[in-house]
């Protein structure tokens, strides 16, 4: 079992490819890997409660995948109400996750 840090900078409003990444995350988790998704930049847009794609985030949370949203990106976009189960953190936490032994980091 590996640890994955999946950093999503894209959003489903702008990029059809974010669907691929959500499926990839689910696929890695289903193989028994530990997956953390770190949403950054416009990647935080679906995290806002009521957004069209908030269900994508809720599905990740339901699948026991850790979902963390970058606090600066949230603040920058005025996002205050988050999908339940989403944690928030700064890049300090991202670095901690990055250097955890056995972690593979994938940016999208």
């Amino acid at each position, binding site marked *: 079992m590996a640890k994955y840090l999946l950093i999503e*900078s894209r959003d489903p409003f702008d990029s059809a490819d974010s669907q691929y990444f959500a499926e990839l995350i689910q696929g890695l988790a289903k193989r028994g890997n530990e997956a953390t998704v770190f949403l*950054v930049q416009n990647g935080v847009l679906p995290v806002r409660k009521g957004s069209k794609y908030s269900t994508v985030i809720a599905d990740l949370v339901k699948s026991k995948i850790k979902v963390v949203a970058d606090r600066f990106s949230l603040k920058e976009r005025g996002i205050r109400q988050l999908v339940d189960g989403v944690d928030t953190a700064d*890049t*300090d936490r991202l*670095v901690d996750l*990055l*250097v955890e032994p056995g*972690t593979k*980091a994938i940016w999208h």
Partner: protein
Amino acid sequence: MAGKTITVAIMDAPYESANSTTALRIVQSALAKGHNVNVFAYEGAVNLTMKAQAPHPNPVKGTSAEQEAHPTTKDWVASLFKMAKDKGVKLDWVNCGLCVDERGAGDWVEGPRRGGPKDFLDASNASQATLVIPTK
């Protein structure tokens, strides 16, 4: 978890993508935590450290360059080098030499060095973590 080494590859040119700012935030967080950081600046990212970058006024806001305090990425990178020195950790910033040549982007702030893909590979092999932040 201090004292590790992280390698970050970046590709975006300055003032074009949120990726550049995020990359520099990650580098800053890593240095602040006492980690060494290798940066491989590939393609447009070699322009991040160009010495000739200059702050400009903002005619829309009616501000002068001084009032606007417009940031430049070369100042941010220079500041990260100072931070690394103050913290006693290493920031090794490699600008891809061929990318520099084709862009005429060879005059940098103090700190970066010229290199190539092998430097990136060696840095990654000697690191506990590698993160590639591509451009689109």
